[in-house]
């Protein structure tokens, strides 16, 4: 199927229609003005004009809190009930960095032990990507080989063009969505759309204020486990964990208990390697007992461990950790420092 165009109004109609049979997830502004991916009831709920959702799209595939199963222990018996499978979903508005981040999470939840919660949502979700409109001062995706108009990882990729959007159809899932809603899409203006996208890509490429050279960084950081640099960096870090919560590739979780009487459920919740009790043993031994070990673990995970395990970068250059760190710890500065230190 060849690429299409869609007008703004028709896109709104499409999203309104998708809400009837799917959970539709899109960037929404919460009551404090924080843009995050949330379920919408109508296209008008979307925070149109958003630059970057502060909370990344991982919150759909790996929710901050997610019920795993329910149990009932009444009468000395034990019943464990699975939760219902997820409804089909459409997630709209992922920028290229967030698309790449989902790809980085996939092998974590797949593999010999399959995480059905994540994988079922992945399987039942159509991803509609959206090219960036501008480059933020904290963006450095291009250093990771991502262009702000890359559709890789999306089922459909939308780019603003004229009064509407240029629509690239990238997977059979994307094709099926178009087929089911064919009258809303048009073949008119496709060539102009393509040209508009190329022009936007060229324009955005010139807007990056942050650029890092990642050549040799993994090899270098792999030799730096005992380097005093981590101690220095840890002195600045507050250990608040905001970087891990907002990181689109961070996936650490805890499994906790919620119960009342004999009935309860197990929940999985985002957790953070920046917290001291994350690795605390019952014996009180703690392999990462100080901030130095925890800060080192985070940056080694981003710059080496993820790549080592899955062959994919553990950072996508979204810049959220730079934008939100209360003490201005900047991963691009750390990458530059790693290249510098002896």
């Amino acid at each position, binding site marked *: 199927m060849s690429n299409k165009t869609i007008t703004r109004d028709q896109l709104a109609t499409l999203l309104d229609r998708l809400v009837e049979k799917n959970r539709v997830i899109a960037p929404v502004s919460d009551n404090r003005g924080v843009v995050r991916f949330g379920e919408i009831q109508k296209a008008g709920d979307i925070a149109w004009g958003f630059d970057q959702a502060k909370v990344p799209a991982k919150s759909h595939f790996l929710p901050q809190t997610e019920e795993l199963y329910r149990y009932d222990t009444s009468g000395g*018996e*034990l019943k464990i009930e*699975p939760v219902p499978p997820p409804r089909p979903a459409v997630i709209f508005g992922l920028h290229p960095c967030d698309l790449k981040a989902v790809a980085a999470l996939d092998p974590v939840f797949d593999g010999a032990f399959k995480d059905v919660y994540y994988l079922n949502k992945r399987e039942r979700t159509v991803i509609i990507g959206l090219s960036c409109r501008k480059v933020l001062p904290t963006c450095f995706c291009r250093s990771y080989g991502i262009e702000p108009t890359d559709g890789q990882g999306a089922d459909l990729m939308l780019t603003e063009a004229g009064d509407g959007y240029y629509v690239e159809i990238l997977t059979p899932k994307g094709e099926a969505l178009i087929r089911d809603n064919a009258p809303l899409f048009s073949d008119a203006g496709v060539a102009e759309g393509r040209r508009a996208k190329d022009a936007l890509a060229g324009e955005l490429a010139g807007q990056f204020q942050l650029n890092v050279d990642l050549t040799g960084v993994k090899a270098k950081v792999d030799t730096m486990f005992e380097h005093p640099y981590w101690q220095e960096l840890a002195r600045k870090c507050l250990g608040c964990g905001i970087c891990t919560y907002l990181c689109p590739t961070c*996936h650490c979780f805890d*499994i906790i*208990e919620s119960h009342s009487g004999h009935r309860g459920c197990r929940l999985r919740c985002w957790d953070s*390697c920046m917290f001291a009790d994350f*690795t605390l043993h019952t014996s009180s031994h703690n*392999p990462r007992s100080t901030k130095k070990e925890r800060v080192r673990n985070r940056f080694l995970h981003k710059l080496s461990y993820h790549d080592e395990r899955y062959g994919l970068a553990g950072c996508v250059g979204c810049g959220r950790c730079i934008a939100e760190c209360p003490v201005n710890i900047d991963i691009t500065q750390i990458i530059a420092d790693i290249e510098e230190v002896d």
Partner: protein
Amino acid sequence: MGIAENCLMPLPATIQQIIPETSDVNTYRVTLDDPEAMANWRNRPGQLAMMSLFGAGEAMFSISSSPTQRDYLDFTIRKAGVVTKALHSLEVGGKIGIRGPYGNGFPYELMKGRDVLFVGGGIGLAPLKSLVELMLDDQHRADFGKIEILYGARSNDDLCFKQAVLEEWPKRPNCEVWTTIDRAEDTWKGHVGFVPAYLEEVAPKGEGKIAVLCGPPIMIRFVLIGLEKLGFKNELIYSTLELRMKCGVGKCGRCNIGHKYVCLEGPVFNLIQIKELPPEF
């Protein structure tokens, strides 16, 4: 979706027997409620399972029974934290959840044809016991050479599996057992002293021999030094490493040592592998 396809969902299980080991350690003999799940359960010696206490949480334990024993699973557990306190409050017939098995376990196939020395400290004998009993089992005994076991604990009360360690194992052919406690007690007629020091005293020959150890980190550190001095080869020394775990399946991100997950690539590592790990365990 069935329970079996969901790696985070426990299987219902029942405590069949509680065997007191020390004043704060019990062995819980457990069966899975679904007879088919019990019949299909296979684990290697040294593998782990996640135990669920409903109302308290989950925690990871090694399976202390031999894999040749197919009717039940034993878990030898000290009362220490929230989950283990909840477990210790249960009686026979109590309901728990089990998921697993997890981890690599001991590579006993590579140990065939060799003499094997076990060094255990305190409750650290639990994972070793699964391998000792597999090797001592009639069906496997001829595959292995001499079996030596050096086991110590803080006190006489802290020695686990006393029946096996003091009575049964020493009577088995080609099997020698040394036991020690840290400080002298009136009730104890045996050796007194720390495990690493006793190892130096007993001085088993290391040449061509496998060593398998488990115990508190401080014991492991000094025993490793002792074993190298005795001529044990690094690739023939196996130790288990213990880290906090939540998922057991390489996703929750907390049991990593460098880029390795102990729940997947461990808990058993040989000394060459341990030396390659960053010192963060």
